[in-house]
């Protein structure tokens, strides 16, 4: 499991939170592992699977998370969770703010994504995309997939992503 692959230092960090009696992994502990740091959506994913938005995962929730990202999961389930992941503001549609934030996460040039409770805030970076570029990108995306500019509902999202061949292949995390 993940614990075995981390260095002894990180392992002790992870075990301290466990010995506090809560039997959970907090994002603070796990966020130090480089595999987690490498993923800009990591914080969002941990938030989602922690079921209360705190980013703390018990073992069961951790398993749920791995299950959603594994290869054997049907593509429908992956699409559901991908939609939930992209819906940063939780309003049931992927709107321009969501896409802007997601693109920002993917293209920022800063060292590490700090989890923020003020979601939809720009990630600090030196050479990331400007606000105008982000706006243009969002505009193009909406021109392509949602001409009415209502935001992508789950069905829209699903319809589009099933036509993108790489999505299911890339949406995979394994230990």
């Amino acid at each position: 499991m993940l614990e075995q692959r981390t260095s002894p230092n990180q392992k002790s960090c992870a075990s301290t939170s466990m010995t506090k009696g809560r039997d959970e992994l907090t994002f603070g502990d796990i966020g130090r592992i480089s595999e987690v740091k490498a993923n800009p959506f990591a914080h969002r994913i941990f938030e989602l699977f922690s079921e209360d938005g705190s980013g703390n995962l018990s073992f069961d929730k951790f398993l749920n998370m791995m299950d959603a990202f594994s290869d054997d999961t049907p593509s429908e389930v992956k699409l559901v969770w991908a939609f939930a992941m992209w819906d940063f503001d939780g309003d049931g549609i992927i709107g321009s703010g969501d896409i802007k934030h997601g693109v920002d996460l993917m293209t920022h040039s800063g060292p590490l994504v700090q989890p923020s409770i003020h979601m939809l805030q720009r990630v600090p970076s030196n050479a990331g995309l400007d606000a105008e570029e982000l706006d243009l990108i969002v505009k193009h995306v909406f021109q392509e997939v949602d001409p009415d500019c209502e935001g992508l509902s789950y069905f829209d999202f699903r319809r589009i992503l099933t036509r993108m061949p790489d999505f299911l292949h890339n949406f995979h995390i394994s230990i």
Partner: protein
Amino acid sequence: MSRGHLSKHPSAFDIAGSSISISPVMQNYSHNRPMMAQVPASPASLLLSSDEEDDGDDDDDDDDANNQHQFSTFGMPDYGRTANHYRNLNANSNSGLNRNTNTSTDLQDPLSMAPPFPTYRAGRNSNNSAYPQWNRMDRTRRKSTPSKQVGKEAIAAVQSPMPSSSQQEHEQFLEERRAAAVVHYLATDDKDMEALYKRRVQVEYAIGRAKERVAQLSLKSPSKKHHKKGCMANIMRRIQILKDNPFWSLWGEELKEIEGNFGSAVVLTFAFLRWVFLLNVGLSILWISAIVIPFFLSPPSSFQWTGIKQYFQANGLEKTWILLGGYFYKSEQTGWYRADYMYPCTIAAMYLTSLIAILAKIAKRIMGSGDSALVYTPDTFPYATVVFTAWDFRISSLEAATKLRRGIRMQLREMLADSMLIVKTPKATNNYEYYKRYAVLGLLWPMVMAGTITGVYYLVSKSDLINTKLKTAYAQPALMTILVSIIGPFLVRILVKLEDWKPSTAEKVVIIKLFFLRATNLTTFLYRLYVLLHNGYLSTQGLLSDPCLANSKCSHEGFLCCNTASDGEWSTCLRQPIGYCASKCMENEVGKQILKLIITSTVINCILDIGMGLIFKFLLNEEQELSIPDFAIDVVYIQVLVWTGSHFSPLASTTGVLCFLLTFYSKKITLKTCTSTQKLYSASRTSVMTYGVLLVALVLCIFPEAVFVTSQSSGICGPIGEGQSMYDTVANYIGRAGYPLSAVLEWLGSPVILGAIIILLVFGVVLQRAKLVQSNQVLEMRIKEHALDHVIVPSASRRHPHDGGNEAFDFGQTGR
């Protein structure tokens, strides 16, 4: 966590499935997006529009009763008016969230209509462990003031909108609750707490809906894990156990490491190499068991074994089991096994097996991970594709992640620049570039192609000469490798730079040109080999015999000068008069050339890769990127050589096995000096480039193979008699076999090609089925959604009676 009911380790399905007991909840649809989620976000404005009133502590019971009642009935009150009311409330509010308000009554995803957290409703009472932090806050609040517990109830109540009593009462009730919540939350002075709370609500909303959708999916498709009974199922299970054997996931650890550091495109190419390696292992088992072992069981009388040293000098192998010529049985064979028909049968079996394997692999990729680049074009929505699928979750190293982020940034910037360029640039300035590009394309590229073709031609024609001049038997293949594998791609890249394409097109042009160059070189090579073979045949017919002096070379490649009747390994000089040229065993010559080419090509490529890597790392202190198209085309090139070489040497696939093994490890070592690529390589494009190109190469390979199989043999060596081709031999046998057998074999035999067509058709059917299944799923889901909405919202159908019946089928209304 006080969550006792999760003591097992459930899957995502089960977690969501546990909420199925509350399934009537899913029928709580309204036509509009719920405004509840906006409630906590704009407490200030709500305060303006509603009175505050503190309700008592009997709210819990009230709500429970309401909820129970609501769950037991299916009939839903009219949401329309309530929804309108909420919409008005929020029209005044400034939502802090970036969202497009939707005031249309389109049918949307039903779960987006559901109020948030319906799955938690059953456990809504104070010990609900879904909200531990809320429980903690709740408990502290309860200790302080009884009225403060209204806070939690308010939120919870917000989730259960519809009472059984009248609308007015309910709305007022909710407003009061909201106001109380507002008061409570404004009372806390902590901006961060408010933001945190807002955040948590948003997240839980998203989670709740995702779980409902997953639950709905699991309702649709029953669990696939139930154990079927019956012997077919037993067999499938045993095959599955075999498949899980670690042997088939050879090098799994290495591939995982590569995946983490370099992303999916590189690891897919390595997985392709591993697959080709395993294919060659299978093929060499086929060849060894069908041809080589029977040879050892009863070797022909011409068998001579001069020792291991001869392997590397590639001489003295003429009469061994390694080359086709050694299978010189004449009429010695008794029994049913004859080398002369088994050999062509094994060739056919090899091609058929490879074809089936490739098609199966491609089909699995299409149906499995949705790798449907062969089916869908990825250019329909370029921006959306980059935004949603560019991130490779398989990456696990920080450096690769940084590179990928940079790559995405650059790709997006390039796309933006392109779209602006189309608008702004006038046509005039492009003329010079167009002329330059077409000049290069029209003049330089054909020159390069012609140059390499001529090079290959002469290298094959004069191979003896070159070898004696450079004093090693491997000189000619080494030169050929350098020309084809090194100089060729280098020139191609220079040319493409000169042609000045856009970066994204430039890559496609490079790949296409590399493929064409390699294909033409191989064609020339095989053509020259065919000419050699044919010369061998002609020489036994008495043609092409030029007079020669004692130690002079013959002008034709592969001929030797007969000074005595027993010159040469085979009985060539028995027929020719002394002092004339006669051919050597051409099958062996060709086989030797191909085998040497395979080995030399691999060794030189490996040394070059490692050498370049070391140079880059230690001398230049930069890091190079692994070029995926070169890698893929090299693998396909070697595999084509193995396939065509198998005609002349049963050990070609074994050589292939060793060479691919060497290639894998040397590439892995080279990777240590490489960094991850910055270009966005899509996984599906990589798999088209690898398996697709291999399939095309196999199909193209069948043509030269057909020519070889139907060319007449010289009869000096090898299993086929003089003047006959492999095809003739097999046809003779079929003709001579007894009546039922010959008819059946003829019926089977001629359409070996027909069999391939059938397989391709089956493949096409599989593809269609995959498409059909996908569109079926979408249709099902939509019809289900529409049907449910149709049932639940009688008001809508009352308003539009003529539309009500068509709603389920009127997709146009939803604007999709």
